[in-house]
């Protein structure tokens, strides 16, 4: 993931968390405040509605009180004169004071005069039947009692329910205007609290008001729930009714303080919804600001850091791919990136110096190595010519070209040949080691006869082995081809080294050389001995140059620097083959060289090479 992406993700997650936290906190705090405001507002509305109802009562009571403490009314109670009735109980009086009934009742509970009125149709109707029960002589309407338990001559006003419905009522004991003497009866007024009256109150208060009787069997569920929530300490219950409406409930009590109506105010949740809208705007503003913040941060980050990092990266990559340690990174300023660029430049300088030193050292080493190889090549070449002369001269002597030989002379010449061969092998090994090391060795792919190869090895090695009292046995498997392809000189070198090695480490017994075809694709040379054997832990290391089993290069057993097996292995690998050893201490060793059966190469070997045996 790029630094850009990471930064983007980190800032994004941080901002998202921040916005979420802010949103949750603000929602909790703000919405709760809005809800409280809403509750307070609705409570205020409910109170306003209640006040409106109470105002109705008060206004009615004031007039009722005026009439009851009036000499004309007192006189009417005494004589029942028609003049009073005509003047004061006609339809226009009911309409003016918005009364549904008016009752003059004496102290004994006997009705002196009563009249009912239909305010809708403006005509006289009978007084509601249910009123009789409310007008008991000792009831709160006819015997209003003040706080000290005495008769309250100012009367009473409030609500009552009778079978016809709820009424606003006012009742005052009838006394002369000077208030002297005992009340002669009571004047009771009432107005039905019907939908018309409720609408009137609602329109005056600009509230949405509903009132339902508490014992209404069809009372809606929200009224029921509200009724149970209302207590004396919390007389107003405010409940949201869905997302758009909030309602406030309270109980209306009658003049005996018994609850009779559930009063409900409903209003739009404008405050709460305004709060939510504000919160949404707040959230949107936060998001916009957050995105802007991310963009600005990324742009700044890009300018101040990322583009410079990218430049650093490109330049370092360019230096790496071009390997040009002389390139330097351009930088300005003094911040960490500039310091990094400076450090990289210093490192490049140090690397360039180190590389130059290494190159000088390598050139020197190469020169030394080439010099060594050259000396090796020269020495071996120069040594081969006189050795060739010695060998051919001895050969000619042995063939009797210069006359017959005595047995002692013949034996001596064999000794000369053996030692010359050893010297030649030693020189060959040195030369080949040099060639192998410098990778200059090339292999031939010429035809040769395995039996010729075997004969060469036998002829050269048998005298050496016989001198130690060892027997040399050779065997070529019947299915070996008569002619195969390869580099017979290197093969004979492998064989000389293996047989020489076997001879070196075998004190008695025999050395066996065998050629066979382990499978149709390969042929193998096996050299076994009955010698000391090689410890298991040493078997891997015997192929290393200059190493013998006892870890020294002393020539206690026989001549030879420990190059032989190393050369065997390297030559075998060059021929795409492999050499393995099986050995046990005391029961001898068997070296097996397995090689691919080579075919004549495409281009062919036009000149036949007489690979000459040692």
């Amino acid at each position, binding site marked *: 993931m790029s630094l850009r992406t990471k930064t983007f993700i980190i800032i994004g997650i941080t901002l998202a968390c921040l916005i979420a936290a802010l949103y949750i906190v603000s929602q909790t705090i703000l919405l709760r405040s809005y809800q409280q405001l809403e509750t307070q507002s609705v409570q205020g509305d409910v109170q306003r509605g209640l006040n409106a109802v109470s105002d109705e009562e008060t206004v009615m009571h004031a007039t009722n009180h005026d009439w009851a403490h009036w000499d004309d009314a007192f006189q009417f109670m005494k004589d029942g004169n028609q003049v009073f009735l005509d003047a004061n109980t006609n339809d226009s009086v009911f309409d003016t004071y918005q009364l549904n009934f008016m009752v003059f009742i004496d102290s004994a509970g006997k009705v002196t005069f009563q009249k009912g009125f239909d305010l809708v149709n403006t005509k006289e109707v009978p007084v509601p039947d249910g009123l009789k029960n409310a007008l008991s002589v000792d009831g709160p309407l006819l015997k209003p009692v003040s706080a000290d338990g005495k008769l309250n001559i100012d009367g009473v006003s409030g609500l009552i329910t009778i079978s016809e419905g709820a009424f606003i009522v006012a009742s005052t004991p009838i006394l002369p205007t000077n208030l002297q003497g005992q009340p002669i009866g009571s004047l009771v007024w009432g107005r039905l609290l019907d939908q018309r009256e409720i609408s009137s109150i609602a329109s005056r208060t600009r509230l949405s008001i509903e009132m339902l009787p508490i014992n209404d069997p069809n009372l809606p569920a929200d009224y029921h729930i509200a009724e149970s929530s209302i207590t004396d300490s919390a007389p107003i219950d405010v409940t949201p009714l869905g997302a758009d409406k909030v309602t406030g409930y309270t109980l209306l009590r009658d003049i005996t303080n018994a609850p009779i109506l559930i009063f409900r105010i409903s209003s739009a949740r404008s405050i709460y919804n305004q709060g939510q809208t504000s919160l949404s705007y707040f959230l949107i503003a936060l998001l916009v600001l957050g995105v802007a913040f991310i963009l600005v941060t990324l742009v700044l980050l890009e300018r101040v850091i990322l583009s410079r990092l990218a430049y650093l990266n490109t330049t370092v990559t360019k230096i790496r791919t071009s390997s040009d340690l002389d390139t330097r990174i351009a930088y300005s300023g003094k911040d960490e990136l500039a310091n990094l660029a400076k450090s990289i430049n210093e490192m490049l300088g140090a690397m360039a110096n180190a590389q130059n030193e290494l190159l000088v050292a390598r050139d020197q080493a190469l020169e030394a190595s080439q010099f060594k190889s050259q000396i090796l*090549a020269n020495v*071996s*070449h120069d040594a*081969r*010519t*006189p*050795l*060739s*002369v010695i*060998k*051919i*001269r001895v*050969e*000619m002597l042995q*063939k009797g*070209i210069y006359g017959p030989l005595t047995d002692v002379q013949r034996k001596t010449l064999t000794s000369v040949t053996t030692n010359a061969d050893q010297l*030649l092998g030693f020189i060959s090994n040195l030369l080949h080691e040099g*060639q192998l090391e410098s990778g*200059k*060795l*090339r292999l*031939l792919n010429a035809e040769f006869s395995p039996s010729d190869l075997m004969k060469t090895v036998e002829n050269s090695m048998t005298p050496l082995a016989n001198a130690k009292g060892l027997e040399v046995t050779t065997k070529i498997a019947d299915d070996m081809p008569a002619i195969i392809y390869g580099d017979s*000189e290197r093969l004979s070198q492998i064989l000389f080294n293996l047989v020489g090695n076997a001879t070196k480490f075998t004190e008695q017994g025999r050395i066996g050389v065998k050629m066979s075809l382990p499978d149709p694709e390969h042929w193998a040379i096996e050299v076994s001995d009955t010698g000391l054997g090689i410890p298991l832990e040493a078997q891997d290391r015997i192929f290393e140059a200059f190493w013998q089993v006892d870890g020294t290069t002393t020539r206690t057993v026989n001549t030879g620097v420990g190059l032989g097996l190393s050369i065997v292995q390297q030559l075998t690998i060059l021929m795409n083959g492999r050499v393995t050893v099986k050995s046990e201490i005391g029961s001898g060793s068997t070296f097996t060289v397995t090689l691919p059966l080579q075919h004549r190469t495409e281009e062919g*070997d*036009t*000149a*036949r*090479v*007489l*690979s*000459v*045996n*040692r």
Partner: protein
Amino acid sequence: MYLALIVEDAPEMATIFAEILQMAGLATEVISNGQLAIAKLKEIVPAVVILDMHLPHVSGMDILKSIRADSRLALTKVIAVTADVLLIQDLEDLADLTLIKPVTFDQLSDLTTRLLPTQTSTESQ
């Protein structure tokens, strides 16, 4: 009689080559220097040239190339002698036979039968 020109800077080696080839019935001439050999090859047409590749001043390869470039010497067999196995591949196309040092008596004495027709006469002088 076939003529063998022996180009070899080591006198002992040259002597042995000459001795063995004479035994095989060839006339021999020994030259120990590359420049002299090139001059000599302008005069004579030997049946065989025994050419040591490792010579002072003029390399055996140069001599070999000049022989192959000379149409007069088209029938001349060249036996290259070298101890340097790295040369063998380069010699394949140019030499008729390559001997790797050290050489043996048998190889040398076999040379005539390997390379030269026994019945035909040569342009040797």
